[in-house]
């Protein structure tokens, strides 16, 4: 039986670099094994640990299917991809990078819409005028649905959008959006405005170290998990 602990780390881009930096800061040095373009690695000095470089979306999936013990991933992806996340994974440490908010934004010219409740009333007028439900473009289908249910809004349709979501109200593909933003500049540039207060912010996300509750943990893997966590706590 394999007694190694497997940790999933983003394979590409800024998130990958920041993960390595954050780990290095607490004395955990992530190294690639073999080719620089390879997908396997280790943490210097910790035996019985494998690093698996995979895409961010795959980390969520691997955590619930039990292919990895630990993973570094944004909370937004966890909440979006994993139904019942609180039972199926455990959030271990916030990593203080990858900050971004999942927000609800409407065209700035909708001066009658400042809260979710106003969306509901706009949706009613909209249905009368356009004979269809108001359209929300997003890639966060589950987060959007939960937020809208929470506010008692059902008269809308989700338009799945995998890129350039903030352009959909202007292009006419959708009427409003749920998207991720860190500074809000892109939204502003596209004449969009975030709804007031908590109505506008579905989730304040950042990268997290997350453990799978689905995978079978044995004393050996627990020990390595504790070793990693203690490094973070020393800091």
């Amino acid at each position, binding site marked *: 039986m394999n007694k190694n602990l497997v940790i999933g780390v983003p394979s590409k881009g800024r998130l990958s670099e920041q993960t390595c930096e954050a780990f290095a800061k607490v004395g955990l040095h992530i190294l690639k094994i073999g080719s620089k373009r390879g997908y396997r690695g280790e943490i210097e000095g910790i035996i019985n640990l494998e690093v698996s470089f995979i895409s961010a979306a795959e980390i969520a999936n691997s955590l619930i299917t039990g292919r990895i013990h630990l993973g570094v991933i944004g909370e937004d992806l966890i909440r979006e991809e994993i*139904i*019942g996340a609180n039972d199926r994974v455990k959030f271990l440490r916030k990593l203080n990078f990858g900050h971004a908010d999942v927000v609800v934004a409407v*065209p*700035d*010219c*909708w*001066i*009658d819409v*400042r*809260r979710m*409740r106003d969306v*509901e*009333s*706009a949706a*009613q*007028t*909209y249905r009368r*005028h*356009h004979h*269809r*439900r108001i359209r929300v473009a997003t890639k966060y*289908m*589950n987060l*959007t*649905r939960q937020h*809208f*249910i929470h*506010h*008692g809004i*059902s*008269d*809308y*349709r*989700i338009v799945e959008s995998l890129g350039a979501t903030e352009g959909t*109200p*202007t292009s*006419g593909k959708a*009427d409003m959006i749920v998207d991720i933003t860190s500074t809000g500049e892109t939204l502003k540039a596209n*004449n969009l405005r975030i709804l*007031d207060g908590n109505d506008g912010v579905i989730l304040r996300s950042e990268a997290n170290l997350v453990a799978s509750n689905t995978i079978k943990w044995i004393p050996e893997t627990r020990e390595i998990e504790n070793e990693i966590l203690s490094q973070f706590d020393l800091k």
Partner: protein
Amino acid sequence: MSAETARKFQALEDQARNILNIFCTAHYEAVAPSIIQPADIFLDVVGEDLRNRTYVFTDPEGAELCLRPDLTVPTCRLHWQRYNSTSATRRYCYNGSAFRFQPTGSASTNPREFRQAGIEYFGSKQYEVAESEILALIIKTLKSVGLQDFEIRIGDVGIFDTLLNTLDIPARWRQRLKMQFCRPNAFRTALEELSSRPAAVLPGVPEDLIRDLSNAKSSTAEQIIFDYLGHHKIEFIGARTISEIAQNLTAMVEDAKRDPISVTTRELLEAYLDVEAPVRAAGARMRDLLQASGLSLSGALDIYDRRIKNFTAAGIDLSKLYFSANFGRRLEYYTGFVFEVHSPSIDADTPIAGGGRYDKLMRAVGATADVPAVGAMIHTERLLHVVEGNLL
């Protein structure tokens, strides 16, 4: 998974045959609508909430399709494609698979692939007679396949709508309460707000704009908003028109001037939603409530009484029937009478059969006017589970 054992499969098949026989003998035409359906219609009818329980997929040409989450909408489509008429009167029955994702995992009483046996009765303008026919046939069917111990919960979404219509409150408030009827928590919040501080519907909207709109005629409201946007250099984008925004904002300004919903009215609504009793007692209770409030709601209550009379005429045992004003709230497409059959051997959230009236549903598949429609379906796995015990 349904039919996971050969034995269970056989038992379900046998039961299905019996059920369909009874439906057909009662002159319901057996139909088999398509399993793959356009996703649009379902999402439009039931909204986004059901999307995470529906298997939605995209075909190679990009069309958004789904595995049918129920058979009522597919049967409506079949009927509409055949007759394209709001007056065609037809009875249908079916027994077929439907598919729903079960967030907490597939269980024997909640499989992701399950078989619905159902009946639909379209076009009959004898509303209460049709409702009694459907309920009586379902009871007869359940009994004849061996269900002995059961209780029936009935409700009527229409009574609440009628009640709201008789209240002297702004149309938008009424609409809001109607929309939130099926979401008890949001409904409570809405009622709370409208009966205490309706003026608070306007935070964030600049005061000078409110002042200008307050004195404006509707024709000038659009111009005021147009000027406001121009003055603040706000780009106008999106499908919503200036006139929509003007209408909505003007209505908000008007509503804010109205008195909150009175304590009496609020208490009446709450008292109504608390009504839960055997059918006759419930009828009497509702009459008392209305008499005390001085509102006239006799139309809706006459329908209620007529329905009860028809139940008796159809041979339905009234002692098994409970009325609950709250019931029907979770099911958005019902427009009037609703019912659910419960067995004491499975939990209260898991009905064995259910149905009701949904006169607006045909619109979703193309009709330009309401079509009287009442129907019901049996969860065949649950029925088998109760009738045969937990031995499968």
